[in-house]
């Protein structure tokens, strides 16, 4: 098991910068998910960690040792590739023994290990088959098995579930998580799927265009997005973003938008001067159909579009020049064109700088649960 540290790592391909000034630590035993859209540099970062690519600048350390020049085979890491990279001309067993054969490991010991790993991953009946004769999930498990067989101190996974169908993906997610819990091997996992990130990670690192935007526990990323980019990337449906303003009245700082105002929860600091324009973010589930506290000011919206999902319905509402998505109950009484009054809850309203998108409210001291428990000011 190992800890990893990226220290001001850059990777340039000609004029293009794939990874810019990456500083990231992965603690021993962590399940770190590198999350981001395709092309954000997450796979490049992983490949540099694997030794398949080399930083243009900066250092990568495993257990404190700089590994920039260490070839992949000598880093004691194992990798599961997106395409699994199984050798099509070998049986499952051949694929599993390939590494030990290359490293000239003891054959009897290898056989015992394979039996054990095959047992764990339920591959035993498949050992004689070739990859072409396996289902997607089975191939995935073989790739996982090949990595497991190494008993590495570091597991690397590059979108390992992206080629599976939805049901299988859910199942494999659970399997990988339980495997990680059991073995405790430090894991770096690349994905663009926020559900995978939220459900599997002990820590998430979000990257955009080669830059790390935020790293932290999944709940913290969701509750306290450091930027507009992170806020809109995490959470489905997306957080609503509308134009707003900071108001100062009677010594109270208020956020104004959608023709109404709200007050951030007590104890939260708004780092913006009064009168400055901001971007206001509200998650669809945080817009209410009834006042969150007596006397709360509402705003009016017309139902423009309904997306019934069964247990809930997402309603797109037109409010003046803005449009917001609101979560309603599954069997909603809402009708198209109907005009309703909606309410904002100041506790769950986010504000971002209109220029650079950085979060203007520091929530790091409070989890959402804390806020929810707190009584709202009138």
């Amino acid at each position: 098991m190992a800890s990893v540290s990226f220290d001001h790592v850059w990777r340039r391909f000609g004029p293009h910068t794939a990874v810019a000034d990456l500083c990231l630590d992965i603690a021993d035993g962590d399940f770190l998910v590198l999350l981001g859209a395709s092309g954000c540099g997450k796979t490049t970062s992983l490949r540099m960690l694997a030794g398949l690519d080399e930083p243009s600048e900066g250092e990568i350390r495993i257990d404190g040792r700089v590994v920039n020049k260490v070839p992949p085979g000598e880093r004691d890491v194992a990798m599961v590739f997106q395409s699994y990279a199984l050798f099509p001309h070998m049986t499952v067993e051949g694929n599993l023994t390939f590494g030990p054969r290359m490293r000239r490991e003891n054959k009897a010991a290898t056989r015992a290990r394979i039996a054990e790993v095959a047992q764990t991953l339920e591959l035993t009946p498949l050992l004689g088959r070739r990859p072409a004769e396996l289902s997607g999930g089975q191939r995935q498990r073989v790739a996982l098995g090949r990595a497991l067989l190494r008993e590495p101190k570091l597991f690397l996974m590059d979108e390992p579930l992206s080629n599976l169908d939805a049901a299988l993906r859910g199942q494999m997610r659970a399997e990988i998580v339980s495997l990680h819990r059991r073995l405790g091997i430090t894991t770096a996992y690349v994905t663009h799927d926020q559900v995978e990130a939220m459900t599997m990670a002990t820590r998430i690192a979000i990257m955009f265009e080669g830059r790390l935007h935020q790293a932290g526990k999944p709940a913290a990323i969701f509750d306290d997005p450091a930027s507009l980019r992170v806020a809109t990337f995490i959470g489905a449906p997306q957080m609503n973003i509308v134009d707003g303003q900071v108001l100062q009245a009677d010594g109270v700082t208020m956020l104004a938008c959608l023709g109404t105002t709200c007050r951030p929860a007590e104890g939260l600091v708004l780092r913006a001067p009064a009168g400055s324009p901001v971007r206001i973010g509200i998650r669809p589930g945080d817009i209410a159909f009834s006042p969150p506290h007596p006397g709360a000011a509402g705003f009016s919206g017309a139902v423009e579009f309904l997306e019934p999902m069964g247990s809930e319905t997402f309603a797109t509402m037109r409010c003046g020049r803005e449009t917001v998505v609101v979560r309603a109950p599954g069997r909603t009484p809402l009708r198209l064109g109907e005009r309703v009054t909606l309410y904002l809850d100041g506790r769950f309203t986010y504000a971002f700088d209109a220029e650079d998108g950085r979060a203007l409210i520091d929530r790091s001291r409070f989890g959402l649960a804390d806020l929810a428990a707190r009584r709202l000011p009138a």
Partner: protein
Amino acid sequence: MRPHPLATALLAVIALLFFAPMLWLAVASLDAHASWALTWPSLTLAHFRNVTAGDYLLSLWNTTLLALVATIVAVLPGIFGAYALSRRRIPLRDGLMITVLFLTGIPVGIMIIPVFQIFAACGWLSLLPTGIFLGANSLPFALWLIKTAMDAVPREMEEAALMERASLLQTIIHVVVPASLPGIASAAIFSFINAWGSFIVPLVLVSDPDQQTGPLTIYGLIAAANVRYGDIAAFSIIYSLPVVILYLLLARSFSGGFLMGGAVKG
């Protein structure tokens, strides 16, 4: 799709047209009084007995040797060269690939005079160097075929091997070669058939009569003062047999049309 009767009929006619010229070979090889004409044969196996002895067998053995040398010379450097061109940082790679492609288009007959001059000066007018020359002649096409096949092998597969601490040579031999085997096999078959059927090259480059190859034996018989039609036919059949067997062994892969598919995709 349901077979269409008109298509079936047309294809049957074409099949017959392809078969018709072959008919003479079968008949004449068994006919005691064979001539160029197609006549009802008076059956005999004498021709086959005649041509499965002595110099005939020697010339077949020589052809085999020639074709094997050519295949090895085309395929082994072809594998490593194609790997370098597919994966390594080779300066002017695109230019090189286009040169290689141009070379595939140059008829071998053109090089025969200069190669003869070179071989004569080196004292190489014999079977082995001729095989090497024929191998070099097939090499551009082999390079192209194998490179195309290797380009299709996912890099991740090599990286997976690399992560398992396999050396470059191990990776090529255990991962890249098996994964691009169809391309390598078609390159090998191409080189083999090219050398096996080669006529003008050994005619000019092989001086020792004990190293004469099959096609020259046939040609020598055709132009002889006293043409032995039956023997020619019988020997041609025996000489063509390995190629037919090769076809039968590979019929399945051929029907996939893989042979050129890769090369055509460029």
